[in-house]
């Protein structure tokens, strides 16, 4: 069967898939445990055309922005079909959207028509209507919800459009033909880091280019479980990919995930680090309460798996290489690894079949691979799943790159990296201080592999820009090169390794973005605190590294002459803790995820030239490197060592 879908835009992709996959199920929604409702590619496309016709009749123009505020459900994808097929672009956001976000997004994107998921959201948006002068129409997705006056029901609009089409309305088909590659298919507002949210403009060409980026070939026989919010570009691209490939997407939810995995037996899924952390915890708990013999068998199996994989990675050149390997070590290690590989193989074969297969059943037993993105996968978790034989392909990208820039492939499954860049994509590693291109640069040995710097990307997936914010766009996008704000390195086996952030923005593992500076500013107003740095990149919560102020504490009655004594002083901890709670609280306008859950006092001052720049700004990556043990301690009972 032909693999390449020749679609030029998203609407075209929907049309071709309908023609090609006809009656195969495209999406399935859960009603009860074992009662799911499928919709075929053909039906979905037809209903999408009906909706598009209804929208056109309502006055929706080509290239108009239509808000789509909903979490994963069948009506989401139907609404998206409708929007794409009438040549418009959607502005997606989840159902937990706040009032401020609604007002900002609708007004900034000049939205006239909005889809809302449920009654609650409908009431919310109706209440705000005075502040939304441009908004004309609201359409309710939930078929069980009742519409307020002036709000239309999705299904009514679909049947209205269907009537028009039976009467010979061909406006939707005409719209599809007029879509240009450079038109937007979506406008995604990323959660505000500095000030207002930014509207990322992604074009049809952006999305179509991504279809070649995902390294797992799937077809009509595959089942894709959807668990991440579809209004994130990361999940969106996978749903698009399943439509493109003729696979079926099964909508699951966090609550029913474990059960759904068993019943759906997915062959592929997009996933986030948190999902694997949770899965890892569940598996380890299961093993802890298992019979001692079975527990021992698991540990033997895991040990063998580690040995086997380690040698295999080495032999196939898939071991992380951040330094160039001298020839003589290679000559020495090659036969050693070959020998170990051969010795371990039969044992591993047995344990793999008898023990590890049972563990793999916790993910349904049919998983070919999964792409993890939306945050860094903790290395232990990464190793765990790859060792027990579930290939977790870590990928990397931003909303601005729609999203995939690089992803591991089955051939280049190098733990600790995010894999090679996807086709037609160029990357640069740029020195943060001098702006010199470190990689690729023929001046340096191996073209500059192994150097650390800021990652720049150029390729067909890079966004058109931020909507109505040319200055902001210019800051990050020049000559097609997008500045990612991440530190990276090109390894010696041509994979990218992410090493942290060059911008100070912290992205928590739940996807929340926050700027540390306002928090740090607030905290350094305390008399007890000299310096403080907020941490928490890829973690569940934020923490703080604090250099206490000796004089301030002495005034409060803590007698101590050195910082290293203070580190052990309980009273100092208590005082600072109280101060933090008071300064950063919900009452002061800080959000829940901005609360500092844990902190550590440091035994040394920050010094100019070391931890601080000449302008007294903190060098975050230096501090992070220096105090990595302390940071590790703060987050040690997260994930792996969870009780």
């Amino acid at each position, binding site marked *: 069967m032909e693999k390449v879908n020749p679609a030029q835009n998203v609407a075209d992709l929907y049309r071709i898939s309908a023609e090609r996959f006809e009656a*195969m199920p495209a999406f*399935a929604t859960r009603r009860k445990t074992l*009662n799911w409702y499928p919709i075929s590619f053909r039906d979905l496309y037809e209903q999408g055309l009906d909706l598009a016709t209804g929208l056109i009749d309502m006055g929706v123009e080509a290239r108009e922005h239509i808000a789509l505020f909903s979490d994963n459900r069948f009506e989401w994808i139907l609404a998206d079909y409708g929007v794409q097929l009438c040549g418009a672009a959607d502005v997606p956001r989840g159902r937990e959207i706040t009032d401020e976000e609604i007002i900002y997004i609708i007004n900034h994107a000049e939205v006239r028509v909005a889809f809302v998921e449920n009654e609650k959201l409908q009431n919310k948006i109706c209440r705000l209507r005075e502040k939304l002068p441009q908004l004309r129409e609201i359409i309710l997705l939930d078929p069980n919800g009742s519409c307020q006056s002036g709000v239309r029901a999705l299904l009514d609009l679909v049947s209205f459009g269907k009537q028009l089409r039976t009467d010979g309305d061909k406006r939707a088909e005409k719209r599809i033909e007029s879509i240009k590659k450079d038109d937007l298919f979506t406008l995604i507002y990323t959660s505000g880091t500095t000030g207002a949210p930014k509207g990322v403009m992604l074009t049809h060409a952006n999305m179509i280019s991504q279809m070649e980026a995902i390294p797992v070939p799937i077809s009509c026989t*595959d089942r894709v479980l959807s668990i991440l919010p579809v209004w994130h570009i990361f999940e969106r691209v996978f749903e698009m990919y399943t439509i493109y490939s003729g696979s079926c997407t099964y909508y699951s939810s966090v609550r029913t995930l474990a059960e759904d995995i068993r019943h759906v037996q997915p062959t592929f899924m997009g996933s986030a680090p948190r999902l694997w952390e949770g899965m890892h915890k569940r598996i380890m708990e299961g093993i802890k309460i298992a019979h001692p*013999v079975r527990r021992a068998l698991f540990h033997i199996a895991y040990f063998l798996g580690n040995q086997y994989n380690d040698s295999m990675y080495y032999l196939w050149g898939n071991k992380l290489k951040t330094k160039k390997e001298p020839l003589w070590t290679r000559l020495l290690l090659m036969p050693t690894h070959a020998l170990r590989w051969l010795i371990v193989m039969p044992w591993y*074969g*047995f344990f793999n079949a*008898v023990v590890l297969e049972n563990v793999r059943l916790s993910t349904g037993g*049919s998983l070919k691979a999964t792409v993890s993105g939306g945050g860094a996968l903790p290395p232990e978790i990464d190793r765990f799943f790859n060792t027990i034989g579930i290939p977790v392909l870590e990928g990397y990208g931003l909303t601005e790159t729609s999203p995939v820039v690089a992803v591991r492939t089955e051939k280049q499954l190098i733990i600790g990296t995010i894999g090679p860049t996807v086709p037609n994509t160029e990357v640069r590693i740029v020195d943060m201080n001098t702006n010199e291109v470190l990689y690729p640069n023929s001046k340096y040995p191996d073209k500059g592999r192994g150097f650390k710097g800021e990652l720049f990307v150029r390729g067909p997936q890079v966004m058109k820009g931020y909507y109505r914010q040319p200055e902001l766009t210019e800051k990050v996008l020049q000559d097609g090169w997008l500045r990612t704000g991440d530190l990276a390195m090109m390894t010696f086996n041509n994979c990218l390794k992410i090493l942290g952030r060059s911008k100070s923005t912290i992205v928590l593992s739940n996807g929340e973005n926050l700027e540390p500076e306002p928090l740090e500013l607030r905290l350094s107003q305390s008399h007890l605190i000299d310096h403080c740095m907020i941490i928490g990149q890829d973690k569940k919560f934020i923490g703080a590294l604090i250099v206490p102020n000796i004089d301030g504490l002495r005034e409060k009655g803590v007698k101590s002459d050195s910082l290293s004594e203070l580190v052990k002083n309980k009273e100092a901890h208590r005082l600072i803790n109280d101060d933090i709670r008071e300064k950063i609280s919900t009452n002061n306008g800080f959000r829940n995820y901005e609360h500092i859950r844990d902190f550590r006092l440091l035994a040394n001052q920050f010094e100019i030239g070391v931890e601080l720049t000449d302008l007294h700004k903190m060098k975050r990556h230096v501090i992070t490197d220096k105090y990595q043990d302390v940071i590790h301690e703060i987050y040690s009972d997260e994930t792996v060592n969870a009780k």
Partner: protein
Amino acid sequence: MQIETQLLYMSDKIVLAIMIFIIMFGMGASLTYNDFRAIGRHSRGVFIGFISQFGFMPLLALGLSYVLHLTPSMAIALILIGCLPGGTTSNIFAYFSRGSVALSVAMTTASTLVAIVMMPLLLEIYASGYVHQISASMQAEGAQGEFVIPLGDIVSSLVLVLVPVGMGIYLRKKSPPWAKTVEDTAGFLAIIVILYLLATALIRHNELFLSTPWELYAATILVGLIGILFGYWVARLFRLPPIFQRAISLETGIQNTPVAFAIILLSFSDPIQSQMLWLAILYSTFIVAVSSVVTLYYRKIGKFDWEIYSNTIVHNRLFGDAYETRYPKGFLPKRIDGDPSQGTLTRPAKQKS
């Protein structure tokens, strides 16, 4: 070839007996009442498996003994191997070769039950020629009496072997988690036992490997391999779906060797006992290797069929039994296009209730 000294010492035999007990216990622990009912549900597959297992395998063993000119005692051992019922190992291989585990389990269960009648009967039919040869040579050496296959002993060892199986079934009913533990442990032990026997043979009788004629190596490899191929083609001939072909194939070639060890230990005496044991050890070793290779091959060729099959299963599970998966034109190869069995394999059970 003659084995001068005893192949196994008394201590080894005790260890072996305990292992057999645990392995058979583990086999029982993997069975549920449902598996017995499954025999009826898969009657066609079980019947075809029965033909290749009890009809073809002993014949194959006899043919190989004849063609390769095996000594009478070796020939009897090979025929004994040919007459064995299926073991749990075949279920594991069926699983990994993307075959029908349900059918494999049903065939194992059915053949174990039938073995009490079939094994003595088949041995009587196929081995009698070799028995006469042994008797003749014994008398030529001036020994008294005749060599006979102790059929009574064989039946009683079979019954004895079924006792732990029964206990396992009981355990499974009482405590599934414990049963699971026993099942895994037994699977692990099975491998250890074979390696242990091989190692002891290697250490104490290292000349044995060299003095073993190539015919014996060939016979022990071929009996499994040809059995596997035969099962596959018979199932294909009867137009069974691919997942059944693979299950029957492996079930035919993979025999329950612990039963063979038990029978040899309990029913025969030296010097024949040691020779028979040696053949059983060789067969056990080679069949694991042969089945592993075959399984890897089946996995590869069966990948597409299996994906279609499991997709249909999931569709029917979630969308209801009436849901029909209609693949786009040209997606399915002719081989399985329009084959209702690809989708309806697991459904008869539901239709009944």
